[in-house]
């Protein structure tokens, strides 16, 4: 918060600090007093400036208020409540958050020692990374394609059509997938039959199932995910493209040397944020699509936890949630560090 006056005061504080270091023992007390007074003056000036700035942008701050309240209620209060993972929680009145018997890491042990712990981790990571590897590049490609499209009407139609599936619930999507993939009357199997092939039960086939999960997620979400990249593309200085065209750059070269480098930081941020929630593999989707025939490959941490929650094991469910959070946070820090080191872009 440096204004002209603040800069002056700040410089004076720096000078006094310097003088204090260099001053003789006799002078030190007087200089120290001066420094203290100047620091107080600087602090007051900075506060005045801060409040003036807040006042000037009060409507922007007002907009910030709603997400802050949201995060406070739904993200920070649960941090306090998360201690039930270490307790025998029954209910808010019977044991309260803090009244349940302390059982340490028993719930974590139950989760980690589950027969299905490693398959659950494997499946969860497989779907998370699979979706990341497929959906992220596809949404970047879609964003670039929409941005590069010069036919305005076509661009709008494609953009709208690609958003639409995002607004369908997985219940409806399941119906659509069944109509497409059913071995008896699915469109895909009709085509297979047309060419003399044998119909396949894709939704009950453990080899096909992961592909269905990843590709159906991409179909549903790439349009929505592309919005942030389209927004980033809109911010690129148009004169760069004009100059490139004058220099004879073709479309591919413009994408490679202007578009992609310009949105690199946004790509890195989106990637890092997705890595932070890497163990959220898509509960709604997997819960709807999975069936007993593909449980071995379709069960993820969240669906396992859901079955536990139905049995009233809220402490166990919370332990699994904390486990996911710790893994996600660790991966986020590692990725952020790596990104800063190798690409000079990072979240923090």
């Amino acid at each position, binding site marked *: 918060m440096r204004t002209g006056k603040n800069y002056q005061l700040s410089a004076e504080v720096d000078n006094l600090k310097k003088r204090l270091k260099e001053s003789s023992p006799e002078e030190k007390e007087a200089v120290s007093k001066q420094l203290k007074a100047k620091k107080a003056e600087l*602090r007051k000036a*900075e*506060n005045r400036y*801060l409040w003036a700035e807040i006042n000037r942008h009060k409507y922007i701050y007002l907009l910030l208020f709603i997400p802050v309240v949201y995060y*406070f*209620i739904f993200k*920070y*209060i649960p941090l*306090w*409540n998360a201690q039930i993972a270490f307790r025998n*929680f*029954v*209910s*808010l*009145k*019977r044991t*309260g*958050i803090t009244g349940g018997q302390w059982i340490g890491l028993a719930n974590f042990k139950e989760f980690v020692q*589950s*027969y*299905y712990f490693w398959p659950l981790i494997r499946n969860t990571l497989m779907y998370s990374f699979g979706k990341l590897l497929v959906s992220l590049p596809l949404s970047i490609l879609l964003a670039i394609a929409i941005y590069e499209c010069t036919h305005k009407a076509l661009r709008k139609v494609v953009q709208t059509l690609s958003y639409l599936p995002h607004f369908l619930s997985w219940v409806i999507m399941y119906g659509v997938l*069944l109509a497409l993939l*059913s*071995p*008896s*009357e699915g469109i895909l199997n009709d085509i297979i039959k047309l060419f003399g092939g044998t*119909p396949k*039960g894709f*939704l*009950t*086939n*453990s080899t096909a199932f992961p592909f269905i999960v990843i590709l159906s997620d991409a179909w549903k979400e790439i349009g929505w995910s592309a919005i942030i990249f389209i927004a980033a593309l809109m911010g690129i200085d148009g004169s760069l493209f004009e100059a490139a065209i004058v220099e004879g750059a073709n479309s591919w070269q413009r994408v490679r040397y202007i578009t992609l480098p310009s949105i690199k930081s946004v790509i890195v941020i989106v990637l890092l944020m997705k890595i932070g929630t890497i163990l959220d593999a898509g509960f709604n989707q997997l819960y709807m699509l999975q*069936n*007993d*025939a593909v*449980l*071995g490959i379709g*069960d993820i941490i969240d669906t*396992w936890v*859901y*079955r*536990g*929650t*139905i*049995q*009233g094991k*809220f402490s166990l469910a919370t332990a699994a949630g904390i486990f996911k959070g710790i893994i996600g946070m660790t991966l986020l820090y590692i990725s952020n560090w790596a990104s800063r080191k190798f690409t000079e872009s990072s979240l923090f």
Partner: protein
Amino acid sequence: MKKTIIVLLVALIACTFAFAQGATEAPAAASNEPMTITMLYAATATEVGPIPADWEGYAIIREKLGINLVLQQLPSASADQDLVVQTMAAADELPDFITVPSKKVYDDLVAKGFFADVTDDFAKMPERSKVMFGAGSKAYTTYNGRQYGFATPSSYVGNEGLLIRKDWLDKLGLAVPTTLDELYDVMYAFTYNDPDGNGKDDTYGYGAFVESYMNYEAYPGRRFEPLMGAFGVEGTFNMSADNFGLKVKDPAYYDFMVFMKKCLDAGVIDPNWQAYKKDDFRAAWKQGKFGIFREQNSAYANTNNYKPFDDNFPEGGFIVVDAPIGPNGKQSVGPAVEGFRIFAINADCSPEKHAKIVEMFEWMSYGEGYMLCGYGIEGKTYVLNEKGWPVPSAELGDYSYDKSIGQTYVQLRNSSFNYVDPVETNLRYPGYITATSQKYMSAGEVLIEMQSKTWTPAAGMNFLPSPSTDVETFYRQGIAEFLNGTKELTEANWKAWVDQLYALGADKWEKDAYEYAKNGNFLQ
């Protein structure tokens, strides 16, 4: 600035505690005002919406009983119902009077102290006790020798049956199958001999979806019980005192698996059976996708349920047949268990409120309360016939209790119907002439026919405990993988899988179930 931040932080932390500890309860109403009672109910017809705000019952209950009734409806899916009640309990937001969706939830919440002891309340409900609270009912809710819920009948015993397309049998010149081999031949013919005559290869012999209850109709579940019955492995447990245990370890279970695999490999079972949800399955038989399946009497024959099939196939029709006889003479449609719906009173209710709930519950079971909850309002949702029975009427339009709007006014039927009174059965399932084919249908008569088939007595099997999440997953996944071919079905592989199931915890499940069955006198 620092001070401001500190003040804000302190305020936030204070708020955190306030939110975390929950709100305090509102003070009780003055004694001369109606007592507010909140009730969580399971709708009788989930597809038509909740009880309307203008339901006359609110005013009648306020006037007659001094109760301001506030109703909350449970979701329709059973897993969602369990989750809602568990979440309400964890938040201490359970209503005063609760329809408990499953035995599993009941056992858990009783052990945690959420439900009030109602052992002494049965004596205060003489009318309801006459028709609903037998020894089986009380055994269902007994915990450490006391009852913490009222278990009322939730369905007619033996209300499902094996149905076969009679028109397909006739067209292909096939006799009604009685043995498993004959049934297989019919399934094969239905699949490959174009029974609907449309010239397309678009039909299957047998249709199903996965509907399983681990403690008594484990995976692959209820819809395959008639096939399992042919091998004597219907139901999850063998309930005999000498040989109690999971049927999956019976060598005959392997024979059933071999038969199932043969059917699946031959393509005579609709391959969507693992992907279908209940509604998909029901839509499929109404579209003529398969010709043999197990279905519930009302889901098959009630007016609204039969109509789509009748519209699609006016010349078509089904017959109820007995389960096929297996290679060793075994035969069963499935385990016959008495189904119960549990109603519990919140342990936090005051003694006055507790007594009021008991009074209301008794009132709902006879006379005016029974008529209100079961049939609605005379002249609005029903008319009285010459026998004085409340019957639906075309003159009432959509408000008639058998029509979509009228059904919303009788959503509390589950709280009043007793499933034993023949008049009630008759009214619940009235005979009618179908709109398109003009033939006579009666879900009531279908029920009687279904009940007359071969069932396996299995009293108390549905009371037994369920396995842990890991054992359940291993059980379901393993059988599915054998049937799908992911695991090769050989005797050695099957034995190894059963051994692993027991090593994982099925032995504990079996022991717990045995203790429960022994203490409840359910061993045969």
